[in-house]
């Protein structure tokens, strides 16, 4: 049964829960009952072959999860730092404009930076300099992550034109 494996591949590669609607869009003429049936066949197969994951039914769709038994190992994993585009923008502004206030960052970006600032502090890429207003600056950890010796290593704005003209 081909669509069983297509269904598996779709849920496998989906970021989070794959909605029923999405499945119905990609595999035409599949019914909800049929999907449920295929999912239980897949889960039976994972169980019988001793796999560490299952497909679970969650809010309007299906999601792949690992069994609880493996949680302690998974929690021990260090994930690489990943930042959203917005967080990267805030980080870039702070790196280039030196210690600066939230208001200055918001003005440059034209949007609010509250959640990005929190996220960057959590990753220890920036730090707060107390005062009124508080100012944000990049940490030594930032230099380490970005492979810089100092902030003066950052390309100057003229060098930007080489790529971003």
């Amino acid at each position: 049964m081909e669509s069983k494996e297509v269904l598996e591949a779709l849920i496998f590669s989906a970021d989070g829960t794959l909605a029923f609607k999405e499945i119905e869009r990609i595999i035409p003429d599949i019914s909800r009952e049929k999907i449920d049936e295929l999912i239980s066949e897949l889960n039976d197969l994972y169980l019988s072959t001793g796999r560490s994951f299952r497909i679970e039914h969650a809010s309007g769709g299906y999601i792949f999860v690992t069994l609880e038994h493996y949680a302690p190992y998974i929690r021990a994993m260090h994930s690489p730092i990943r930042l959203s585009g917005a967080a990267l923008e805030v980080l870039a502004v702070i790196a280039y404009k030196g210690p600066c206030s939230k208001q200055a960052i918001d003005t440059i970006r034209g949007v609010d930076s509250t959640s990005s600032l929190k996220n960057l502090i959590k990753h220890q890429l920036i730090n707060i300099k107390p005062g009124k207003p508080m100012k944000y600056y990049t940490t030594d950890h930032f230099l380490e992550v970005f492979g810089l010796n100092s902030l003066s290593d950052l390309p100057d704005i003229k060098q930007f034109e080489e790529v971003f003209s």
Partner: protein
Amino acid sequence: MPQDKPDNISGLNEEFILHLPAFDGPLDLLLYLIEKNRFTLENLEVCPIIDQYLEYIRQLRSLDIALAGEFIEMSSYLIWLKSCLLLPTGNTDMEGVGESPVEELKQMLIVYRAMKQAAIDFNQRPLLYRDKFPRGSSGDERILALTGIASLMQAIDVIKSRTKRLVIQVKRNKVSIREVMGKIFKMLGEHEKIDLYDIAPSRQRSELVVAFMAALELSKRSIARIVQRGLFGRIYLVKRGDADNGK
């Protein structure tokens, strides 16, 4: 790389095909012409190649001036190269390793062709996000691991292009209502009746607005009367007898 190059250019004696597919640059086109026409670099026919370059530029002139420049630069290089080959040098080994211009071009083409082949090899590999997908990857925004300062520079570029779009161009209005009132007053000294459009000859919205405001102001001060015959009809200003206290 162009996937759809014609294969029917068979020999030097046949006419070159004018409909050329997309090439990534002058070296790409030169390589194509050499391989399809089985030129050797030593007896390179420069003229038909330059004709092809010019034809190609003609096709893309409106699209990409910078790329056209690269083709012209390559053309002049080829003319120079050909002249080196034609001029007597007194010594016959123009093909000496490394030194001769032909050897230089040959090296350039070899390196370029190798890179082109490597690019084809890249494209034939099963690519992540095209032919195979990692687990949990299909979100709308692919959030990637940090990749050094290139990602910082890219972020700055994103800010720049976003804020550029948000800039609202505010033009200062150089025409003051007072000035236009003066102008109308002067015109009413010469004519009994003037068309509102004559006060705003450019018919620009801002100019019309100012003219209308000035007319209203003059009417309020009993200097002129505003007359309009019918809905959407022309608006005229008529001088009033007691026009002494205007500016």
